[in-house]
């Protein structure tokens, strides 16, 4: 099987543009949404707040007889002046035994009051299963800033490294492909935030940075092959060289993505709550990384080199 990617390059570009555009539209809608007010739904890591995850202690007799009623929980929150908190029930062993409450940043006193009021109404909680996260708004902004800074720094670092190892135009298109992957992933999470209420936290930034590494990785392997072929055969049309390079590295691209996806899917399925969104972001990003290196980075490089006339010769038979 050979893939002539350069023949249909306008199709690939249209597909990517459509995906990215829908992500951007979602980010705009999300920014207008009074509940979110940001392109992505931020977790308390970035805006501050308190999140309590409490699970009842079922070893005490009679404690878990009735499932938790979400309305009771809502009322308790309202009594504490926390009516606008978001509340979810967690089921364990088929029964709804736990609560997750996300509120504004609570002081120790307020939090203890809420916890006590809740356990009075719903049953005693098992402190061994508690998870309490609380972040002040200033620290949240700091986390966001340092996260974004880390992204920018690694972009710059990679551009420098790539232009040092390859030529500058390679580096630029690798970064374009990288932006493509990051934009698609961010767009997807913006949509997930709107539709499914999925939040982005510090780990999401980690995921983006990992995608950065892997995306460039994929592109590098193909560019490496293009460079090698150009050296041996400088007179061939660039479109052919690129098509060949993509095909020669195709099984590697597929297999590597597949094996990485195998481990990621394992984390997604069995890795627990904390790592679920993280692995989802990586799955989307890695798929896009493989796609963009084959269909975007290579075709853009072809177009550029055809336009600028580097390494191509006029076809005399024409």
């Amino acid at each position, binding site marked *: 099987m050979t893939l002539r990617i350069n023949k249909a390059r306008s199709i690939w570009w249209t597909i990517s543009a459509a995906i990215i555009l829908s992500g951007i539209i979602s980010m705009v809608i999300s920014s207008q949404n009074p509940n979110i007010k940001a392109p992505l739904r931020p977790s308390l890591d970035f805006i501050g707040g308190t999140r309590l995850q409490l699970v009842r202690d079922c070893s005490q007799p009679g404690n878990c007889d009735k499932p938790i009623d979400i309305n009771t929980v809502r009322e308790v929150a309202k009594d504490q002046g926390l009516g606008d908190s978001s509340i979810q029930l967690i089921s364990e062993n088929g029964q709804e035994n736990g609560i997750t409450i996300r509120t504004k940043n609570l002081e*120790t006193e307020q939090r203890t009051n809420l916890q006590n009021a809740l356990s009075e109404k719903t049953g005693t909680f098992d402190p061994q299963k508690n998870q309490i*996260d609380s972040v*002040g708004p200033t620290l949240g902004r700091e986390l966001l800033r340092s996260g974004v800074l880390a992204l920018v720094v690694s972009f710059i670092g990679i551009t420098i490294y790539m232009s040092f190892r390859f030529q500058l135009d390679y580096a630029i298109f690798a970064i374009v492909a990288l932006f493509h992957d990051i934009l698609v992933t961010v767009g997807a999470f913006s949509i997930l935030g709107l539709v499914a209420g999925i939040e982005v936290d510090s780990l999401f930034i*980690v995921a983006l940075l990992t995608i950065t590494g892997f995306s460039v990785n994929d592109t590098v392997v193909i560019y490496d092959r293009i460079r090698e072929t150009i050296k041996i055969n400088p007179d061939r049309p660039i479109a052919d060289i690129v098509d060949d390079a993509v095909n020669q590295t195709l099984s590697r691209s597929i297999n590597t993505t597949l094996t990485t996806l195998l481990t990621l899917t394992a*984390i997604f399925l*069995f*890795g627990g709550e904390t790592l679920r969104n*993280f692995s989802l972001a990586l799955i989307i990003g890695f798929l896009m990384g493989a796609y963009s290196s084959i269909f975007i980075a290579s075709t853009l490089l072809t177009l550029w080199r055809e336009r600028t006339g580097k390494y191509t010769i006029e076809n005399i038979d024409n």
Partner: protein
Amino acid sequence: MQRQRSLLVLIIVLVIAAIMVIATIPVPLGLDLRGGSQLTIQVKPSEEIKEITERELEAVKKVVEGRINGLGVSEPVIQTVGTDKILVQLPGLNDPEQAERVLGGTAQLEFRTQKPNTETQIFGLQVSRKELKAKQEELRKSNDKEAITQNQEELQNNNRAIAELFESTNPPLTGKYLKDAYGEPTQGTNWNVAIRFDPKGGELFADLTKKLAGTGRTIGIFLDKELISSPTVGVEFAPTGITGGSAVITGRFEAQEANNLGVQLRGGALPVPVEISERRTVGATLGKDSIQSSIYAGIGGLILVLIFMVVYYRLPGLIADVSLVIYSLLTWATFCLLGVTLTLPGIAGFILSIGMAVDANVLIFERTREELRAGKSLYRSVESGFHRAFSSILDSNVTTWIACASLFWLGSGLVKGFALTLALGVGVSMFTAITCSRTLMFLAVSIPSWRKTELYCPKLPASNKAEVAQ
């Protein structure tokens, strides 16, 4: 061949060493896996102290340490982070409520006077206090939680009893009047602690010392209601008290003791409010569940990858599997040796790096197959597979390192763990792919009965086979 053999010996030695390391040195678990509370304390500038410097942060840390020790938690970690934060980790604490209560707020330092006729009482209390403290140290080592809590209560009762034997001056001489405090050497190995008050504090201190001079009653210096020092005042100060706002606490201090007391006093005098800006608590059971699920995920992912490699790449796949297992052992041993604290994102980084380690092998084997299809001999194909794939492997690993480095320098705690494990994993994977896979491949090629091309590349055109077999 000689080189291959010595590499093989090296690999075997490394694997044995790795297994021994893993068996003897446990990897410390992060709070998200073992359960506990982590609090980030932000030290805020105030009107009096506009900028938080290292000296101030150190003093506040001392105050925080004092408060945490008062809680009786075993193995607390207290460290300064950046320029204005202190990180407190309290393993095993499910409800940080109490910790938060004692940690918040400005330190309270006060100089009080001992009530008359309490000398014998104080002496007795101080003796038992010393015993209790020594016992507490012992208990901490043994990790007996119940006994620690009980002893802690006794200590607190003792503290309270001592505090009752002292009374405040009017107005109270608190830390806000103290300008500075530091240890300074005198003759020989003896150290003193010098203290300096502002004018108003100097007056109060003169009054206080005048009252106590020559009586044998002591000044009680209390930090957060705990007695940290109780000096007496010499009889020569009886007429006027210690005037001028400066004083020296003598008493055969060692350098360390004097500095400690100085920092404690400074910390107590700091009018900087501390605020808990981040609290993260994970219950112990929840942590255990996380370990279990991430182990399932890791092993599940690894097995799937191992199967895939053998099915697709045949003999080289098997070799890659062996080097992947070696990879996992070596990486884990590296974590043990470097004392990497394992967190949940850290485990994710490790699992992910397994995927990366596979990539290097995939690159090499694809290249080998290509060379075989181009009609090269088996040995030459394997050789050029490794040779030519190297630049791709290097490039791709360096880009991942760049991303990891910026995460590590700029990220916060949890994020750092991920960056570190992924970066270490990528580093070890380069070694295993290039050294282990390579050595084992050449070993396989050197065994005549294993020299069948079907083992390396199924569906090779028949015309090529004859040549390759040579």
